């Protein structure tokens, strides 16, 4: 269900994005950092859905808040002549890996469980057959 929503969102976004007007190169560094922040938020959201502690308010505020904060930090960094956006990228990417790790672990566990269940089920059936044969 959630993957269908992501897929539809991605396709529509790609169509709109390719037809959107060009933005000046001057702002592209801010946009890039905002993209990293938003990407982190989306992965965080997916991870929280899996962990079943998804909160709409936190997700939306995080999505926009992180992006805006990242942009502001980048601007500040440029004014101070310090590459603050590097720190933002490190933090966001690190969190992205954590969230991706959580998602991966969940699905790996689910898959393992599924195989295990199947195996136990087959065993039970075998046992049943054996019982039937005996009887």
């Amino acid at each position, binding site marked *: *269900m*959630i993957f269908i*929503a*992501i897929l*539809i*969102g*991605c396709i*529509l*976004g*790609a169509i*709109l*994005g*390719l037809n*959107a007007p*060009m*933005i*000046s*190169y*001057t702002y*592209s*560094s801010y*946009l*890039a950092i*905002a*993209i990293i922040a*938003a*990407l982190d*938020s*989306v992965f965080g*959201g*997916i991870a929280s*859905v899996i962990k079943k502690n*998804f909160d*709409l308010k936190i*997700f*939306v505020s995080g*999505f926009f808040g992180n992006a805006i904060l990242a942009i502001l930090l980048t601007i500040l960094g*440029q004014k101070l002549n310090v590459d603050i956006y590097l720190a933002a990228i490190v933090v966001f990417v690190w969190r992205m890996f954590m969230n991706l790790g959580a998602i991966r672990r969940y699905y790996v566990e689910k898959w393992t469980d599924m195989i295990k269940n199947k195996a136990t089920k087959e065993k039970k059936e075998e046992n049943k057959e054996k019982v039937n044969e005996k009887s």
Partner: protein
Amino acid sequence: MRKGKITMTITIGIACFALVTVMMMQFKVVNETDITEIENMQESELKTELANWKTKYDEIDAQYEDTMQKIEEYKNDEESNNEASRLVQEELEQTNTLLGLTDVEGEGIVVTLKSGEDVAAISADDLLIIVNALKFAGAEAISINDERIVNTTDIVNILDGSFIKVNGQRILEPYVIKVIGNQSHLESAITGNGGKIDELQTLGHTATIEKDNKITITKYNGEVETKYLN
């Protein structure tokens, strides 16, 4: 719970939509930028570039200034050199003129002498006396049969006066003496009572004097060589 799940799905979908839209825009910008890098350079980069060019320009401008100054100096030098060389040249020309090493032109007289038939031929001594008189009268250039009279000129009789040599060259009658100088002074120096021309005429020689406002006297043909002068 069911409603919450739908809201959650839609929210994440919208988030993805927004994210991918911006991402695509960014991709496009980055792609375009690869092609027209300079046109879309960041302001700071352009500033740096501009500063670099400005520095370079300043350096080259300073160099240019330097070079111009040097050229100016050289020009001044050259001018003074020119001045000096012009003066030297003038002096050289003047000296050459005086030495008889150039063709000269000017007003003067032409004396033509031809020996009489029954008397002794005109000798080198007669010519010497005439030349001396002309020099006394302020002659600036003299030639006998186009042999220029210069410092080293000799006028001598050869073989007991059978012919005359001037500048080592044998000359034949009629003797044409071209002189540049004040016409009346020259004429009066060799004519009149006691003048050599009159004397020659009384002896029976032919002598004519012509005045000319434009006499050309050719330069001395030999070489001036010194052996003992230091």
